[in-house]
């Protein structure tokens, strides 16, 4: 297997951390950014380049792009997994202008900046945008839904523009047991037992991102997990 260079945002916790771990286990070279400080990374976090930077802050995405480029030393990014995101499970009336701006900036604008800045470095590689099944418009989280739908529309257009040069894929996970949902303000209930583990989800997402072929927009949920269990042949090849 050829060693690849991956770039993961929001890699210090949640799904992102599992993506980083899975990629690291497979022997890939991983560049990782997140909001938390290095000191706050889990103690068993793999030893790899990490930048702490708030992507929702003014200029945050630019700083992140500079950092990635400074670490590439001529190599290309084989796969960028833009995973960092935030969102709140609450009606619009309970939102604040600051939170609205944070969610739209982090989940959409920062990814536009990263895609724009890294377009040259991605030539021949894959840009994977982590969306959510909520992009269809979830009544409980209007702003988050809007941000993820926007990411979907962005990826859909860009996939067509870059076809043959950079593979662009929007991967929409179903619920994941990372605690994001509880942190977002949703009451924990029976449904949470059905959430896929971040570890399993990360494996499927990494496979989907690194596969030589795949649809531009994909839902990553139970069906996909089942397919992975029944037809595991060749799926690890990437």
């Amino acid at each position: 297997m050829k060693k690849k260079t991956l770039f993961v945002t929001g890699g210090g916790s949640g799904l992102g951390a599992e993506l980083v771990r899975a990629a690291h286990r497979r022997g890939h070279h991983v560049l990782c950014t997140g909001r938390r400080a290095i000191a706050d990374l889990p103690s068993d976090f793999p030893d790899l380049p990490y930048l702490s930077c708030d992507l929702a802050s003014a200029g945050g995405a630019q700083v992140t792009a500079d950092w990635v480029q400074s670490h590439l030393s001529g190599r290309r990014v084989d796969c960028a997994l833009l995973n960092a995101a935030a969102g709140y499970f609450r009606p619009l009336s309970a939102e604040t202008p600051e939170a609205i701006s944070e969610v739209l900036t982090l989940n959409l604008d920062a990814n536009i900046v990263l895609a724009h800045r890294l377009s040259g470095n991605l030539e021949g590689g894959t840009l994977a945008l982590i969306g959510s099944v909520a992009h269809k418009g979830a009544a409980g989280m209007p702003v988050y839904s809007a941000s993820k739908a926007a990411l979907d529309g962005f990826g859909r257009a860009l996939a067509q523009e870059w076809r043959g040069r950079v593979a662009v894929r929007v991967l929409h996970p179903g619920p994941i047991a990372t605690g994001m949902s509880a942190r977002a303000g949703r009451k924990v209930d029976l449904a949470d037992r059905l959430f896929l583990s971040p570890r399993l989800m990360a494996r499927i997402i990494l496979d989907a991102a690194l596969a030589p072929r795949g649809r531009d927009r994909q839902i990553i949920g139970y069906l996909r997990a089942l397919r992975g269990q029944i037809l595991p042949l060749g799926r690890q090849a990437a």
Partner: protein
Amino acid sequence: MARVLITGAGSGLGAALATQCMGQTAAEVTALDLAPGKPGPHWVVHDMAARDSCIWSGLAQDLRARGPFDLVILNAGINATGPFENVALDAHQAVTAVNLHGPIRLTHMLLAEELLAPHGRLVFVASLSCFTGYPGAASYAASKDGLASFARALRRPLRKSGNICVQLVCPGPMDTPHAAQHAPKGAKADRRLAPGIVAQKVLDASRSKFLIVPGFGATMAAALGRLFPQTMTRIMGRVLFQRLKARP
């Protein structure tokens, strides 16, 4: 008398909406845009891309004097066309600010200030690109898909809380300054819908209808986009993006 708020009322579809509202329903129209337009409606000057909270408080104050509104049409929008990486980042950021951040922030403010009258209508103007994809305008496509999903998410809660009817308009190409600026070279203007026709469809739409796709051509394209999303985007790539790319 009905009170109406229209954003981006200075030109194109917004101007047509304002004119028809005043002409046919004798509504009290508040028209919002970057600069005052033709006399008639009450003009409120505001930049939808504003980030500064003072600017938004100023707008809230202006609107309190004019509301609550029976009909709000969030129509203001800009575009930036060309290969994604060749369009300056500032232009992409302006698109998402005006087309997505702004309308969401304004909707939030209208709710907070109770400026949406019970039984009123809240109409979002997105684009046919929500069904077809829009290679050559990636940030625009993003903003309009975001707006459409926002409208979907708000539909039920707003109906429950004040019987406010949320609607989504997805117009195809219109014969407006916006289209003339962003259409690829050689596109036929006579194939685009007149904004007046679209405005009429929006104003006449029944409350029971959520999605409004004006015109036969757009309706067909939306149906095909629903059935074959990826194929439709590939076709858009061929008929639109390749020609946009060839633009000097």
